[in-house]
């Protein structure tokens, strides 16, 4: 009953949901991301972007275009660490 295939574990986005996005005409990573929210969890796509790209390559038969820009931070960072960077620097 709950045999979901999880494409994006952080945001609980299933393979089924991504296939629905493809059926709706979203054939690039950016649009699939905007439609399903995959790749927007704390891992920022470290796990799921390549899995989605492989799926797109398989379904569309084309090489996926540029991936979504991997946003910082790469790992969860306490806000205090960002605050400790200080404001007196040029930045």
């Amino acid at each position: 009953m709950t045999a979901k295939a999880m494409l994006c574990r952080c945001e609980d986005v299933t393979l089924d949901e991504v296939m629905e996005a493809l059926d709706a005409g979203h054939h690039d990573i950016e649009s699939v991301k905007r439609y399903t929210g995959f790749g927007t969890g704390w891992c920022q796509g470290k796990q799921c972007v390549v899995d989605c790209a492989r799926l797109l390559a398989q379904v569309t038969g084309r090489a996926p275009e540029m991936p979504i820009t991997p946003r910082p931070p790469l790992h969860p960072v306490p806000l205090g660490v960002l605050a400790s960077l200080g404001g007196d620097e040029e930045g």
Partner: protein
Amino acid sequence: MLAATPPMAPRRILPADLPPDSAFARRLVAHRPTARVTVDHDGSPVDAVAGEPLAVALLGAGTLTLARSVKYHRPRGAMCLRGDCDGCLVRLDGVPNVMACQTPVRAGMVVQSQNAFPTAGLDVLRVTDWFFPKHLDHHHLLVQFGGALNRTMQVFARRMAGLGTLPDAVAALPRAELVTVDALVVGAGSSGVACANAIARGGASVLLVDEREGPGGTRRDDPTDDAAYPGCDPAVTARYGAGAVATYEDETLLLHDGRGVSVRARARVFATGCRESVGTFPQNDVPGVFTARACALALCHGVLCGERVVVVGDGPFARALVAALGARVTHAPGAAVVEALGGRAVRGATLREGARTWRVKCDALVIDGEDSAAYELAGQAGARVLWSDGRRCFVPESDADGATNYTGVYVTGSLRWGRRAPDARARDGALTGARVLRDLEGR
């Protein structure tokens, strides 16, 4: 010394359990820290070894489920042990969202499961998962309601979803450290060390960083690799337990011992290697599904990730696991996973090879699947990232030496080429290091 004390959890492997002439036994004796400590997990004491990754200690105690997922409240546990999956975030000493796989064990740690009501083992919000057997498209569902109903749904959604709760107290942090060097090398595997050495020997200042507890990269996780890692040149400044989390223009932010370090470097080299994935199949997120590298990594700390382990695939980590453990694991080298079985934890899998489909029972499903280039930081730094048909992943574009299209940004080692032998990776690192030196002198 450990063998003389009372036995630890059943998933612990002691050097005394192994034939003394095996590479794995030699490695376990050579690399294993020995101070036994206790940490608290949701009120229960867990036997652990100081310095090992917290997620590995919890696995050793047989604790698979550490959290619930944000939307369906499905059980979550460690899968990659490399900071890539979402499985091992815990609340540690009152601080939320700490990666248990990246945190070395200290005595007296208090570990709590996250996102679970009432507990990670039994979470009543799991009903969300059962109500929406295919999926719940909240992005498009919530906008359909107007006014009061939408607000009510938002309140419900906020309670249902989310990641952890605020810390118990506001921690006072020391100011971030500022470091300026000629070159920063991210990743202390075979290529990163060789690259940093080449730069240092040419007279430039170089900082080598890695989020792991020491150098070696991929080799740290191979239980059959008991050879010494190539050392760093004394002129290289190395920081371990220091992960690069962001890079922008000439500045890179490291997290080192919980504090920020801002590194300014004219040259940035990314030797970040590859990531592993289990692939997308039904129930791929159930606790007890691991990458082969995760299983191998835990094994290097003397922890077997299950009592009944099935290894699928024929990659280097699967082969190392079979070489180290022999008949203690079931190996299906040519099989693919059709589906994992089990609700709260893995209890089996359906496998397929050619026309044959069969079921296996297991409490750990270990998969050596396709790896992919860890391109994220190089991409953030400005390198152009392109799809590779051969490797079926995104790879930063680079010239023969590893220079990217973005001035001062380089890539080297497995990140560029995929997995190769350690000496080939080291040669590539040295090649890139020589190029960095030439460019530093030319600018």
